[in-house]
């Protein structure tokens, strides 16, 4: 659980950064004239924190197979879209204009979700490469 919380914390910072970028792009496209107060700085942090919660679905004491991981990831994404929609639109019925915005928000959630995983994969690849290099050194030292 400790490792899972640590990873969720790392994910939170990546999500928060990507939400800032998504808010800038979506805002520029849908409401370029909109002006905000200082409270807007809190939104990415709040969204980032809430968006990290569905990540707890990945926690299990047993070792998951690749298929199990993929299924849970899909569930995580669906929960994430539902949570963000609830936060943005409050569960009320959507007008035609809001529907277009909702599609944009859902699409950006999917893009951020994929981007988070690509970034984590790149970081893990770097760690794996370092461990392989260390392993080669370790083997040489062990043989001697």
């Amino acid at each position, binding site marked *: 659980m400790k*490792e899972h919380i640590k990873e969720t914390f790392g994910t939170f910072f990546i999500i928060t950064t990507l939400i800032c970028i998504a808010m800038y792009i979506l805002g520029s496209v849908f409401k370029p004239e909109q002006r905000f107060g200082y409270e807007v700085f809190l939104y990415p942090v709040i969204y980032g924190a809430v968006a990290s919660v569905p990540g707890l679905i990945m926690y299990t004491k047993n070792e998951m197979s690749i298929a199990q991981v993929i299924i849970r990831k899909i569930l995580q994404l669906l929960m994430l879209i539902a949570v963000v929609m609830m936060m943005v639109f409050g569960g009320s019925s959507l007008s035609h204009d809001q529907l277009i915005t909702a599609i944009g928000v859902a699409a950006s959630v999917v893009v951020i979700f994929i981007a988070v995983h690509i970034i984590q994969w790149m970081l893990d*690849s770097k760690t794996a490469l370092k461990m392989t290099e260390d392993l080669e050194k370790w083997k040489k030292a062990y043989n001697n």
Partner: protein
Amino acid sequence: MEIQIRTIDETKKEYIEIGCHKTDEKVQEIVRFIKSRQGCFEVNRDEKQYQIPIVDIYYIESVDERTFLYLKDDCYESRKRLYEFEEVLSGRQFIRISKSVIVNMMKISAIKPAMNGRFFCQLENGEKVIVSRKYVPDLKEKLKTN
């Protein structure tokens, strides 16, 4: 067969070399004996007992309270539990990488990322074993030693 023993410098790695015309049963027997001097485990397969050299083990896995030892192409069963192997092999080239697997680090050819913060070890025989995220710090720590 002529036997030669040569003293080498202490900075160099010790080795045993066999010069032969072909690798026949006699030579294999000598190899088995040398490997057994580095430690052996008593294991079973098809109701027969075998002695396998520790250095030949790729990984040890616990499945449904049974313990299996995997070699390059073979698999044997042992009555010992995984934690007993962990105790016996501590300080050697073996490390626990998940709740159910102990791997021989000398048989790992590469470490690669798996999904969900895990990694997998690509072994020299092509097999892959998962390193759970809980054991990743232990593996990193072990790689820093020596």
